[in-house]
């Protein structure tokens, strides 16, 4: 064995160590920092904040977007985007409610609604894969179309009077403390993370976002993967729509208006790249809580909406800068 190889082995050990350090620090560092920061800020702002029960309860308000954000993370890792998610969510709620009001049993209406959501997603997928158009533009179009059709479908009414067993899901608890929607969010996060990390399908998603041409050369059916992802995001948007119906006890066409921006903010804040190829469910999961905690904290403190915006924005950038500095610090040490 030459001295050079021996040196390699030693160096390797050192490198591994520093890598572990970096692993600890790298991908979701800014999210973690942000999370801590938001917690500190929030509890500093108001004494009402450190009430865990209330916090858990508050998640129900945002869970619908959170669920969608989880799946949208996969779509964005694959280098695509779906702006029609919030519109699909509402459209599904309207269709389900309308079916119910036309005498379809609620159970069936729900099933049809969720399938309908998947169809809406599949339409996006088809438009993107068959025509080769940019998903950004396609979904800007379907965003208006879906919400528009929802408006046509139920006009300016609200549809309500759903059966008792259906409404108020946000007020049902597991073990008396965990709201059902919250549990759903956790389960969904685990499932998505498993898909992304532990299956070959997850690999394919990353590959498409990293370099779709190389993925094609590696025999990935990029169109099929994208189709599945768009359909999945539609399906979950459908579920979110139904959750919103249960929580609000009504359906109307303009629920969740502009929600796509909130959803994308969650995903981006979680460290997913807008150009695809990188990102994680853990990141999205944490950034969901960050935004929720910050908002809830500031709401409780009666911070004015636009001061809230400025604070959220500033904390966001600050956390990113700090984590970047930490990164370069560890990198230079390594």
């Amino acid at each position, binding site marked *: 064995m030459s001295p050079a190889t021996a040196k*390699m082995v030693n160096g390797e050990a050192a*490198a591994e160590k*520093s890598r572990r350090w970096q692993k600890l620090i790298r991908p979701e560092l800014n999210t973690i920092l942000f999370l801590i920061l938001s917690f500190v800020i929030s509890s500093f702002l108001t004494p009402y904040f450190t009430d865990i029960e209330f916090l858990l309860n508050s998640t129900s308000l945002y869970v619908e977007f959170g669920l969608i954000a989880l799946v949208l993370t996969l779509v964005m890792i694959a280098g695509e985007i779906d702006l029609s998610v919030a519109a699909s969510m509402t459209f599904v709620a309207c269709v389900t409610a309308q079916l119910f009001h036309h005498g379809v049993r609620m159970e069936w209406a729900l099933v049809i609604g969720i399938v309908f959501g998947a169809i809406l997603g599949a339409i996006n997928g088809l438009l993107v894969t068959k025509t080769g158009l940019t998903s950004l533009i396609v979904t800007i179009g379907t965003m208006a179309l879906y919400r528009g059709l929802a408006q046509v479908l139920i006009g300016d009414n609200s549809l309500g009077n759903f059966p008792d067993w259906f409404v108020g899901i946000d007020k049902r608890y597991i073990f008396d403390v965990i709201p059902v929607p919250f549990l759903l969010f956790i389960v969904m996060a685990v499932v998505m993370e498993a898909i992304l990390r532990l299956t*070959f399908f997850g690999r394919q998603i990353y*590959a498409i976002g990293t370099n779709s041409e190389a993925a*094609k050369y590696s*025999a990935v*059916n990029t169109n099929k993967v994208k189709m599945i992802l768009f359909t999945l995001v539609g399906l979950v948007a459908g579920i979110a729509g139904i959750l919103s119906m249960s929580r609000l006890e009504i359906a109307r066409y303009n629920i969740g208006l502009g929600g796509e921006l909130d959803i994308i903010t969650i995903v981006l804040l979680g460290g997913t790249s807008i150009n695809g190829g990188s990102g994680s469910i853990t990141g999205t999961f944490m950034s969901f809580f960050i935004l929720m905690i910050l908002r809830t904290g500031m709401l409780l403190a009666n911070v004015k909406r636009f001061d809230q915006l400025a604070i959220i924005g500033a904390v966001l950038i600050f956390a990113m800068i700090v984590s970047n500095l930490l990164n370069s610090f560890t990198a230079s040490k390594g």
Partner: protein
Amino acid sequence: MPEKVPVIRTLDISKSFSGINVLNKISFEVYPGEVHALIGENGAGKSTLVKIICGVYQPSAGEIYVDEKKVSVSSPIVARDLGIALIHQEPLSFPDLDIAENIFIGHTRVKNKQSIFVDWHGKYQEARQLLDSLGVKLDVKAKLRGLSVADQQMVEIASALSQNARVIFMDEPTAALTPDEVGKLLDIIRLLKHQGKAIIYISHRLDEIKEISDRVTILRDGEKIGTYKTKDINRDQMIEKMIGRTIKELIPKEPAKIAAQPYLVVKNIAIEGVFKDISFELREGEILGIAGLVGAGRTEVARALFGITPIEKGEIFIRGKKVTIKSPLDAIKYKMALVPEDRQGLGLLLPWSISNNISFSSPNRITSMLGWLKFKEEQLIADNYIHNLRIITRNSRQPVQELSGGNQQKVSLAKWLLTEPKILILDEPTRGIDVGAKTEIYKIINRLAAEGKCIIMISSELPEILTLSDRVLVMYEGTMTALLEREEISEQKVMAAASGQKL
């Protein structure tokens, strides 16, 4: 040339990446009017050394002198201003800009300080002249996107030449080129040398080194072995100093047992405007070499066979059954594999680890019945290939973008070997591979043939075509000009057919 002052001199340059030393106290100097070759195995540190001098990386230790003045080359901009140009090993291309812009971007502004406006007319003219002198037929107003690696390399060369630099570093400029083009480039280098410029020339093709260089510096494992006058050292000595042992460079073809029935039959396939009327047969155990000049359409044929741009006319038969291959997915079903020539753009997912890259086309090897990934298994497979193909790396989790060019090529090869293909298409399989590794790859090709696989090997290196092929298909501008049987193969015939003569 001790009376002259070296234009570039390095003193004890060392470099480590995340704790691993890849260069250890390298000192060498280059004089004006000298062609200084830099050779070494894949991963020896040639590119790293060159990148340090050109400001891409910062050295961990050591000093750089230009005209005997100590400089700190903190960025490529500084290098450019010092009159240093670099032809990168992997072409730096801007697919959305046209060829002329690709040549000039980044340094014209410095040259034409007087104007913030681009002089389009002058630029196109200058670009055309440059490419003409290189003997490249490319439209300077065409977008670069989709150009073959060889053409991109030419553009890169033109760009370096256009900078009018005093020192030009050439990191494997000829890896993707055919002998013809190499000849032109060497002519230009002689001219530059005559003008008193210093050239640092990196190549794995030792004939070129012998032909063009004045001195040669040999690196091994990040250490400098020595600097020699080229005329004082012969080929075998070079190899021995590079890899620490002697090898037979071009191992002879081991005749494999060739089946009687053709396994793959290709009849008159064509894609409009790209290639037409390509026909050949391939038996189990046979190696079909495809030769031709850059841009002859060889890569296009490979892409078509593999279903990336499906054929528009003609037929393909596998085992006597007609097949349609519309996508790589279909191709894989027929147990085909394609190792593409553009390893960085198409062959590999650069940010991914070696093991993830290797396993990516063989999901069945690393997933359980339920679809879960088997990480242990994946690791073992990768380690196996790292060992067998002698991939120089920290470990299998290192991102491939950190590997040296040659080692990346090996990963790309490993990825497709793992699919256990029946028909293996290799597009420039030894591009940028060192002599040692080359023989390894030849051995692998021989072994695969012996195992009864069908192999299509596209190569711009004539010697490997001539020795390894059972049959050679020669292309010229999208048509087939010759299909030579084993006994007919000769350098003259291949060259003649490659330049358009129908045989």
